[in-house]
Each structure stands twice: as structure tokens, then as C-alpha cells.
């Protein structure tokens, strides 16, 4: 069962195989969870958890209509992306308000490894949402750029630009926090 693809597991789950869903969940829970936590870092961790849970509930509810011809992870993150877009729309005014109040938060830096971890997490939060999303999908969830295009409904050039600018922003931020050399 360990060698089964996501699509095979989903097909088995739709026929009532509970263990197939458990395996599918274990495979993708980390990256999807971080996708929401990082994207909603400025809003609320609780809200990120709610949306994360909502995605899985939708997967469960739509198991009968899932078509094995579609790649499971693309379908999964497409649901997540749509929820996130709705969330941005709802919280846009709130975020703008917070941005006016909060200056860039100071990161408490200690030991070397801890400093690096804290620095990258902090710099990720500083990315523009679309750049951060592209970065997370590419380097955390391991999607190919073409798959990211499908998930976020954008052209390949747009996705490449977001990735390029995202990495550039991170480099600048990390250099400020950690210096030229890691």
C-alpha cells in the first residue's frame, strides 16, 4: 500500500477504505498545514488551522466526485488556494489596519541555528502573499511551476516572476538578519 499513488489512495478512500485516507493525510498534512500557517501568519494561527481543517473536510465530502484523472495534490491545493483567496478578501481591510499599527517586528536572535530558523521564518512573513504562496508551493509542497500555474490560476511567466522576486526578497531580508554568509 505504501507504493500507491495519491490518486489510487483517493480512489480507494472513495470506496470506503479508511486506511487509504489516513495514508493520504499523513503524506500531505505537513506541507498543507505550513502553507496556511505561513500565508496567514499576520492574521491568526487559529484561523490557519480552521482553513486547513476546512480543506480536508472538503476533500472528504467531495470524495465521490473526485476524478482520478486529476492529480490529487493539484486538486488539494487548488481548494486550499481558493479558501485562502476568500480569506484575503475578507481580512484585507483588517490587514491594512494592522500594517499601519505594527512596525516590522524585531526578531529575538540567539544561538546560531535558532537565529537562522527565526530569520527565515521572519523573512517568509515579509514576502508579498502571492510570492510567498509561489515559494511555499515550489519549495515546501514540491510542485513543478506548471502545476503551480494550475493551482493559482496564473500564467507560467507570472509564477516564475513571483518565485524569482520571492527568492530575491528573502535573500535581502536574510542578509540583513544574518549577514552575507550563512
Amino acid at each position, binding site marked *: 500500500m505504501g507504493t500507491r499513488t495519491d490518486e489510487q489512495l483517493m480512489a480507494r*478512500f472513495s470506496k*470506503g477504505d*479508511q486506511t487509504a*485516507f*489516513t495514508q493520504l*493525510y499523513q503524506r500531505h*498534512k*505537513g*506541507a498543507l*498545514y*505550513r502553507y496556511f*500557517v505561513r500565508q496567514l501568519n499576520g492574521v491568526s494561527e487559529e484561523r490557519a*488551522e480552521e482553513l*486547513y*481543517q476546512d480543506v*480536508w*473536510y472538503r476533500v*472528504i*465530502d467531495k*470524495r465521490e466526485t473526485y476524478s482520478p484523472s486529476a492529480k490529487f495534490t493539484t486538486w488539494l491545493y487548488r481548494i486550499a488556494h481558493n479558501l485562502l483567496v476568500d480569506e484575503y478578501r475578507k481580512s484585507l481591510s483588517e490587514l491594512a489596519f494592522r500594517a499601519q499599527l505594527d512596525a516590522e517586528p524585531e526578531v529575538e536572535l540567539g544561538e546560531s541555528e535558532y537565529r*537562522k*530558523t527565526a530569520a*527565515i*521564518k521572519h523573512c*517568509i512573513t515579509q514576502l508579498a502573499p502571492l510570492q510567498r504562496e509561489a*515559494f511555499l508551493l515550489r*519549495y*515546501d509542497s514540491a510542485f513543478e511551476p506548471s502545476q503551480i500555474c494550475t493551482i493559482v490560476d496564473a500564467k507560467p511567466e507570472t509564477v516564475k516572476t513571483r518565485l524569482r522576486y520571492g*527568492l530575491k526578497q*528573502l*535573500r535581502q531580508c*536574510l*542578509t540583513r538578519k544574518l549577514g*552575507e*554568509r*550563512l
Partner: protein
Amino acid sequence: MNDHDIVSLYQASATEEPAAELDQRILDYAKSQHKKPMNWLPYVSLAASLALVAVLLPTQWRDQVMPSVEQSRLKATSSLPTQYESVPARTMMKAAPSQRAVNDTIEPQSRDAVSLKAEKQLNAFAPIENLLEQGQTAQARTKLIQLLHDKPELTSQLPDKLKALLDQAGVVTK
């Protein structure tokens, strides 16, 4: 610091996982959805409707179509007592042994008709038996000889009492 360094740094720090409680909640939800019982209500409603139609419609149809069948059945049953009433009880009792013998050789479907015919034939001896009971032996014998002459087929069904009457007169019966 190149892109690879940045990505490696990120991946090393990307360790957040959902809480075990959240995992369990989602897995439990998946389990509960599969265990959800089938909604039988639409099927039960449909079955009840069909049953109602099956009960009501044929009743109306039968009221229109079936009376003639019912009437003919009633007519058939009411005619039975009339046939039996036509046979005197006493004669039937006397004819009983012979009737049993006849019934054993005939088909069930035609049994009623054959037995009635046999009773009718046996009934032909009744006047002669009456004469015997009244002590008019000679007249009874004459009438019996005349009857057997007219209807020789009755000879085989001749009661023992009447056979004896003929024997006394020296008449041979086959």
C-alpha cells in the same frame, strides 16, 4: 548566499505540523462520513406509495370487472343443494354401497354427474321396494321383471333383496 542556500535553510526550518488533536478530528470526520447510514427515507416513501397504488387501483378495477365472475360463482354454488334435494334421503342411504363402487372407478371431475346418474338408475328400483314393503310381492316381482326387460343394464345393479325376489320365482339373472 545563493537560492539553494535559502531553500535549504527554509526546508530545515519547515517543521511545523498540525496538532495531534487536529489530526484526530479530521480522521474522525472521514470515518464518520463513511459510517453515515444510508438515507432510506426516499426508498421507503416510494415503496409505500407503490403499495398504496397496488391496493387501491385494483379494487376499483375489480369492482367494475369482477361482478360477473362473482355472480357466476355464486350461481354455481347455489345450484348444488338443488341437485341433492332432488334425491330422496332414504334412497341415497340405500344406494350408498353401490355408489361407492361407482365412485372408485370414475374421475373426480365427472364424479358428481356420474353419481347423480347412478342414483337416478338406482332410484328406478324404489317403487318395487315400496311394493315389497307393503307385502305385494307378486306385483313387485312382475314390475321388476318388466323393468329389467325394458332396461337390461340395470340387472348388474340389482340389490340383493330384489335378486332374491327373482330367485324365488326361478328367474335367472346375469
